[in-house]
């Protein structure tokens, strides 16, 4: 699908999203707004382990004795571009998990365009900052477990999940705050593409593109249970993301048990209206947290970080705000 065709669909859905029923059925009921916590992190030199552990515990994340898999967005080691979740953020979250009593902590990624894991989670810059108890796993090359696709959009009967994903007791998604040249933004939900091994799906995971990127994101969101999310917004990427864009300092980490609430809040911080982003609108049909009133922002005042990310012309119609 060409970008402008996709965007036509997105615009139509966005216009219809105010009408009940058009975003995939009634939202999941929940007792209280979804918490999203903002932590101020002006640069990557600051060790955030204690603060992250405190927020995770406050959000009710229980990791004692569990096998935890951290899924960063780590796709292209490139010193001049903020493409990946920063190693210091990955390390802070990994060490926070150990602090909370996790029995095993693994950092795993199935990069979608690089086969060579040296450019991904086996990169020395990451391994150098991790506690020796934290393993790094190249999930592109290895065993997979077939699980039924619990969504109905892509038409794929099943997903082959990396074994590390299937066997984890707790999955924590750690995306980078970036624009995306096909989807508008790439955050927690899009990050799930990296749970699928390349030896099954190729480089890039073209089967998922063929079945519709947004369809595949949504099906994965219904199939893969994510227990917690931490978005690296210390330095994001604007413009022609997710690889060729420019650095955009925001100075914040976003933490939440709710993927869509985290994505919607991050989008607002980036100057995009999540109710104008097709896959977020559709995710609102089965996940809580799309609307601002569904989210309880905690920690720092979001006004401190709110900005407007530059983006490709096609995505400027997704902008909105001010939201805070």
């Amino acid at each position: 699908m060409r970008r402008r065709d996709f965007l036509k669909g997105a615009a139509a859905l966005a216009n219809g999203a105010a009408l009940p029923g058009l975003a995939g059925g009634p939202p999941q009921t929940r007792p209280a707004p979804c918490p999203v916590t903002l932590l101020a992190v002006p640069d990557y030199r600051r060790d955030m382990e204690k603060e992250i552990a405190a927020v995770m515990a406050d959000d009710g994340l229980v990791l004692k004795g569990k096998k935890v898999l951290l899924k960063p967005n780590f796709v292209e080691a490139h010193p001049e571009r903020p493409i990946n979740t920063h190693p210091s953020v990955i390390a802070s979250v990994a060490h926070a998990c150990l602090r909370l009593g996790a029995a095993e902590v693994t950092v795993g990624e199935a990069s979608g365009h690089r086969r060579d894991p040296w450019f991904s989670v086996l990169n020395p810059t990451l391994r150098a900052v991790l506690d020796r108890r934290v393993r790094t796993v190249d999930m592109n090359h290895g065993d997979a477990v077939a699980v039924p696709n619990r969504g109905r959009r892509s038409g794929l009967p099943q997903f082959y999940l990396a074994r590390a994903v299937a066997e984890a007791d707790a999955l924590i998604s750690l995306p980078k705050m970036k624009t995306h040249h096909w989807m508008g933004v790439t955050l927690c939900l899009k990050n799930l593409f990296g749970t699928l091994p390349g030896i099954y799906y190729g480089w890039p995971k073209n089967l998922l593109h063929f079945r519709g990127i947004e369809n595949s994101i949504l099906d994965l969101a219904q199939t893969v249970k994510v227990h917690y999310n931490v978005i690296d917004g210390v330095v994001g990427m604007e413009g022609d993301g997710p690889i060729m864009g420019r650095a955009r300092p925001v100075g914040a980490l976003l933490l939440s048990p709710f993927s869509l609430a985290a994505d919607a809040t991050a989008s607002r911080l980036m100057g995009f209206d999540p109710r104008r982003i097709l896959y977020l609108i559709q995710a609102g049909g089965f996940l809580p947290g799309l609307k601002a009133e569904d989210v309880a922002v905690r920690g720092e005042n979001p006004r401190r970080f709110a900005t407007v990310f530059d983006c490709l012309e096609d995505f400027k119609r997704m902008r909105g705000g001010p939201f805070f």
Partner: protein
Amino acid sequence: MIPAAEPNPLVRRLAAFVRDGGVPYYPSGEPAVEASLLALLALSASEPGGQTAKALLARISALQGPDGSVGLAPAHPGQGLWLTAPAAVVFHRYDLKAARDRALGFLLSLKSVTVANDPNVRQDNTIVGWPWVAGTFGWVEPTAWAAIALGVSGQGGHPRAVEGRRFLLDRQIPSGGWNYGNPGVNDRELLPFWDTTGLALLVFGRQPGAARIRPSLDFLEGNQDRIESLCGLAWAALGLECHGRDTARIKKRLRAALDSPPDDTTNAAHFAAGVVALAGPKVFLP
């Protein structure tokens, strides 16, 4: 059959990766077809008749389906059919002509999907290559492997092989190199990769089109000192040597990487590719 050479200590170390008749990518994993195939190519240069090669070959041969395809595992039918191309190269090197021809038959039936050209993407989407997954677009790596398989089998002039090389030339980044298969998007060149560049260069060894790959050769030769990974060193050395470029420096570094003690992150497929690279690109050439 390639004649047996002097016993190679690296090949002995490669054999240590074998488990349950196959080679896992990583020590904690299950035997993997791709890692086993690359190990077989490494063994073909020095110990083609050894017990390790025989066991690996038996396992791979048993995976070949009635249609000639070779996939990831019997438990996951239809998955990883891109492995048929490297399997065909291995079958050729071990003189299993019937298995090779059935694999080539499957490859010739497998075509990438074509679509209309998109002004945002700098490539000709109407050229047919080979996909990772049936029913999707063509990409550099599966197309390169399929073209190599046809080339070593004496079918480098087959129309699909010719179109495969045309596909690769179209996907070459203008300033040199290849990535997974998009040279540019939105008027910007994308970043080249060491491994896919080395692999694509192998396709043009002793085949037409070599004159047009000079930007990629220059790129790889000029940047070889920046390559740090075993995977990158292996495929870059193969691509450069295939076209007569000096590989003394890169092979020295490759040798050092292979000699370092393996750990739980050592990818056996990359180790095997490194052993192949030290022996030279002949297993990939007609």
